[in-house]
């Protein structure tokens, strides 16, 4: 909402600069986005160089046919000005720019010049040059009452500081100059002047209701509909002051009739519409809901197909306006219009909002109506507009008016317990101060035994409850006065849950191992399932899709993390980043049949494509292979004191021989494996990648929690190595399992420290070397103790795995 300061001060005599006022408004709840300047630059005394002049004489330029040589009375003397326009004569009052004057949008001030051999000391300005219109033929001729020698800006509001307000949706009353003036009066303590009043006198023997009939069929969507008739107007450009106001408000002058409706809207906040009476078919208007597929061409020239239920205004034949949003082309005011029907109405906010959104059509009118307007504005706006129509467009106000109102306005009475003010704000506000604030804001206050009874004015429908009144008091009284405190007597315990602590430990472990965290969008491209070669029946193909995505690349919620990781990896590769080892903690979104919401599961997933040991002049190493990935998963579980086992994974997007399902607590927790070459190809990745994804819930469940002490000090352990030869395809885990069973309870840990095939081992065989740790909790083990367990282990290996001891 643009509020030109000189317009505002018509209604409140505020003595602050624009910046001071903006600060005060910001601190009381009206955000000022910026302070801009409209029209003539005001700095450096520029406004003194634009004055009202009177053409004393106009002669032909001695050296140029198309130029005039004029003597112009500037009040202080006479200046000789050469002018190229033809639309004026001696005696006309004109807008004069004296040398040194800077026009809007120019870089250099005007200087005295010699034009075709004759000195010219100034310029007679056109409307376009002064910023009042986009095109102008000839110079601007001022009305007779313009004072010669006076500053032009004092006669026409040509130069203004403009406050650009961001009005919150609960305050449609501030979408008007008068509403802002009321607010400014309340927050500065200055007096608010009365609203624009003054009626035009109706003339003539006819009556509006004899000329046109107006009905409201759907009063639920139109609580009030008012209209007046102005006969015999002359459609013409608006006078300069009106154009200047329209321009300063950020609109475009059209003609006097349209400009007046816009001027009234800006002043009072009530959108208006002017119909050409001659083009209203059947001399009747009906406010009603549209039937399906009714059409209207709005004044922007677009054909709008309406849905059933949208509110419209129709004449005998067709819709003539989409209620509260935009008028129709057929009944639009044009140059030949003589009689106009002025509409001011109150339309239901929600209906206007929904229609506006459905049609994709927003206007100054709809943005006001959709917030819910004050019904009492209807007669005010009609009175103000009628007067201006008569004064400016030369019309006659036809006696009578239409005013169809569902029910008259009755102010709500809201009780206010004054002690609640302190209880909510934490600061005491004196009752006298409360009453003063509310009164300045337009409320009526009565003192009662148990507090105050507050009557809410029609323009503050947002205030319904005690707490709303407290907010009004707080913002005007000053939030800066509220003392900062902390809640007293807290009876709760804060902190991270154990699950949240585990999550932090896990991601920290990944970062410590060299993986960097990414955060990618939760929505991805639907083709991920094909790129990952998911089976047609794979349930990860079932996605939550967005109805209105920004692009197909961000149109479905991910059901797995890998597509995001591979996409990020590919992007970093193309940036020539090295050692791309990344992870993400976040959710996957799995639809649940029959449920509204989906199953959102937190996972920790990552992929490695480079060395985790860095690059150095020292010896390198650390390939991103399956075992690097598995090592990271081991680190992840170790960080939460959890454990897992593996099975062969059957994931179509992983290397069939270098991938594993991660099993924790007997449940599948995720996978780790090298990414399938065809998948890498689909993501334009030309280096090997190993990936993992672990469900956070399983990781948390596997966490041992508080670690229980075991005495590893008092009785030292005994270590032995054991090398055996087995079938080459025998999994190491099976060997370890047999060893564990046979070695219990003294065998504490088994560690595979070497695997070797070839050489003297024999075809189809491999040698596996194990390091065994024996320990007893209550004594130091003797050689004999260990030897017998070792023998049992060797026997079991021979029996169960056909293993040979390697000497």
């Amino acid at each position, binding site marked *: 909402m643009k509020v030109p300061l000189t317009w505002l001060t018509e209604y409140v005599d505020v003595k602050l600069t624009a910046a001071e006022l903006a600060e005060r408004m910001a601190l009381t709840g009206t955000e000022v986005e910026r302070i801009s300047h409209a029209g003539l630059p005001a700095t450096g005394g520029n406004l003194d160089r634009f004055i009202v002049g009177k053409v004393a004489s106009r002669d032909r330029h001695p050296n140029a046919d198309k130029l005039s040589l004029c003597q112009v009375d500037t009040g202080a003397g006479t200046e000789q000005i050469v002018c190229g326009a033809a639309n004026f004569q001696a005696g006309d009052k004109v807008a004069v720019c004296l040398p040194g004057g800077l026009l809007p949008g120019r870089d250099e001030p005007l200087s005295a010049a010699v034009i075709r051999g004759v000195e010219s000391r100034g310029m007679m300005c056109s409307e376009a040059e002064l910023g009042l219109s986009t095109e102008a033929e000839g110079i601007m001729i001022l009305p007779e009452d313009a004072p010669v020698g006076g500053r032009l800006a004092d006669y026409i509001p040509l130069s203004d500081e403009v406050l650009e307000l961001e009005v919150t949706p609960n305050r449609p009353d501030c979408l008007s100059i008068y509403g802002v003036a009321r607010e400014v009066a309340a927050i500065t303590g200055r007096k608010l002047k009365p609203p624009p009043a003054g009626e035009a006198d109706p003339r003539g023997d006819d009556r509006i209701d004899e000329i046109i009939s107006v009905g409201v069929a759907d009063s639920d969507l139109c609580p009030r509909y008012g209209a007046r008739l102005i006969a015999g107007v002359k459609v013409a450009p608006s006078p300069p002051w009106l154009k200047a106001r329209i321009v300063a408000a950020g609109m475009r002058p059209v003609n006097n009739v349209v400009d007046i409706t816009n001027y009234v809207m800006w002043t009072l906040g009530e959108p208006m519409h002017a119909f050409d009476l001659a083009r209203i078919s059947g001399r009747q208007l009906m406010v009603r809901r549209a039937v399906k597929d009714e059409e209207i061409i709005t004044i922007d020239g677009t054909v709008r197909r309406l849905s059933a239920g949208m509110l419209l205004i129709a004449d005998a034949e067709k819709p003539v306006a989409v209620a509260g949003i935009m008028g129709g082309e057929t009944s639009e005011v044009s140059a030949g219009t003589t009689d106009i029907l002025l509409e001011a109405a109150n339309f239901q906010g929600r209906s206007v909002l929904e229609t506006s959104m459905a049609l994709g059509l927003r206007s100054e009118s709809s943005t006001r109506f959709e917030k819910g307007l004050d019904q009492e504005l209807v007669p005010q706006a009609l009175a103000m507009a009628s007067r201006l129509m008569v004064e400016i467009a030369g019309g006659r106000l036809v006696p009578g008016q239409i005013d169809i109102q569902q029910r008259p306005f009755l102010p709500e009475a809201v009780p206010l317990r004054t002690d609640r003010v302190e209880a909510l704000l934490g*600061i005491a506000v004196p009752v006298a101060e409360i009453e003063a604030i509310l009164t300045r804001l337009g409320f009526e206050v009565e003192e009662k035994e148990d507090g105050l009874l507050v009557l809410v004015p029609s323009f503050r429908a947002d205030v319904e409850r005690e707490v709303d009144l407290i907010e009004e008091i707080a913002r005007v009284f000053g939030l800066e006065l509220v003392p900062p405190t902390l809640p007293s007597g807290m009876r709760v315990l804060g902190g991270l849950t154990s699950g949240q602590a585990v999550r932090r430990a896990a991601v920290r472990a990944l970062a410590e191992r*060299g993986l960097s965290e990414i955060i990618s969008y939760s929505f991805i491209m639907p083709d991920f399932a094909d790129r990952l070669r998911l089976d047609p029946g794979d349930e990860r193909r079932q996605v939550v899709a967005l109805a209105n995505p920004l692009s197909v690349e961000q149109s479905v919620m991910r059901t797995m993390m890998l597509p995001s990781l591979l996409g990020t990896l590919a992007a970093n590769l193309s940036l020539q980043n090295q050692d791309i080892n990344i992870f993400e903690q976040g959710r996957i979104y799995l639809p649940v049949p029959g449920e509204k919401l989906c199953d959102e599961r937190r996972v920790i997933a990552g992929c490695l494509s480079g060395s985790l040991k860095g*690059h150095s002049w020292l010896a390198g190493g650390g390939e991103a292979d399956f075992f690097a990935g598995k090592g990271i998963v081991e680190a992840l579980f170790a960080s939460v004191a959890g454990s897992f086992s593996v099975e062969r994974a059957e994931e179509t997007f992983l290397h069939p021989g270098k991938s594993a399902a991660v099993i924790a607590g007997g449940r599948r927790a995720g996978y780790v494996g090298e990414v399938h070459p065809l998948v890498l190809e689909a993501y334009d990745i030309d280096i090997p990648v190993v990936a993992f994804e672990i469900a956070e819930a399983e990781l948390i469940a596997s966490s041992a929690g508080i670690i229980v002490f075991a005495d590893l000090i008092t009785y030292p352990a005994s270590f032995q190595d054991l090398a055996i030869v087995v079938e080459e395809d025998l999994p190491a885990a099976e060997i370890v399992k047999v060893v564990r069973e046979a070695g219990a309870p003294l065998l504490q840990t088994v560690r595979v420290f070497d695997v070797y095939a070839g050489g003297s081992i024999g075809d189809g065989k491999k040698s596996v070397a194990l390091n065994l740790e024996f320990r007893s909790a209550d004594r130091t083990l003797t050689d004999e103790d260990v030897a017998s367990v070792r023998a049992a282990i060797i026997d079991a290996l021979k029996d169960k795995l056909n293993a040979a001891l390697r000497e």
Partner: protein
Amino acid sequence: MSGDLRKQLEAHAGLALIYEEAWAEIERAETTAGLEEARVKHLGRKSQLSSLLRSIPELPAAERPVVGKFGNQVRTVLEAALAERKKVLEAAELERRLSRESVDITLPGQPFPRGHLHLITQTLWQIEDFFSGLGYRIAEGPEVETDYYNFTALNTPEGHPARSLHDTFFVEGKPEVLLRTHTSPVQIRVMEKEDPPVYVIIPGRVYRRDSDATHTPMFHQVEGLAVDEHITMGDLKGTLEAFAKSMFGAEREIRLRPHYFPFTEPSVEVDVSCMICSGAGCRSCKYSGWLEILGAGMVDPNVFGFVGYEPDEVQGFAFGMGVERIAMLRHGMTDLRMFYDNDLRFIKQF
């Protein structure tokens, strides 16, 4: 060497010879290996001195004590000399070895690469830690949410103009399901489940259908909610002031500007004094000296109505902040989109 010993040595030419020769060789030895050779030669089991000492019983009785006494003295002196010489040689050899082992200390060390947590995570943790220190818990809720929790129960019924301020993503085929536009719906879910007092913060991803230089379609918020018997606006102010000081420095101040949110009343926006110019006015704060960091207010009684709290018995405040904005202000970032480009050059800076 004592004069007495020398006299005795002169008296026993054999011993003198042994002594002179051994002494000279010990002094001459340049390496510990050479010294060891000298030791074996002159003090070893097969040395002349050892033979002499062994042959004492065969000497004439008169000579025995003299040779025995002085022979052993010679041995002691030589052993001492040997030890002394060994110390010197070892020191020199160690010196030489260390000198040989000298490296180019200007070469880089062995890398132990570490990864980096995303700046958003680091910022989130810092916010979480601050509030958990004040006694808040951390709550979470769904990102794919119903219209009811995202809007209606937050006092924003259908047709409310505030709804159009949120550019909402909707779920296909389910008109009442959407991607949450803020973390506020979790307020409702927490209060539905738990009786007051409630002190929680709610971090998480939120979504709005907007993408340009200053908007990403996904971003992070942290919501805060405190509901108890006597919570006041002053408590909100004090809590957020402490937060601002913790995040942006002890010398920061905050100010509350009245604002409008459907689910708080009164509502405020909170500014922190500009950490770049300390309030003097600069480009970052648009010469106002203040930077907006969050929205807040006292929980609207209607919201309590939706969750079955008795509005006359409890009061509370709520606040919501954009994590990206906090991180950008703290670290002097200007381009929001960098958070989601996931360029490792960016991530590894922090």
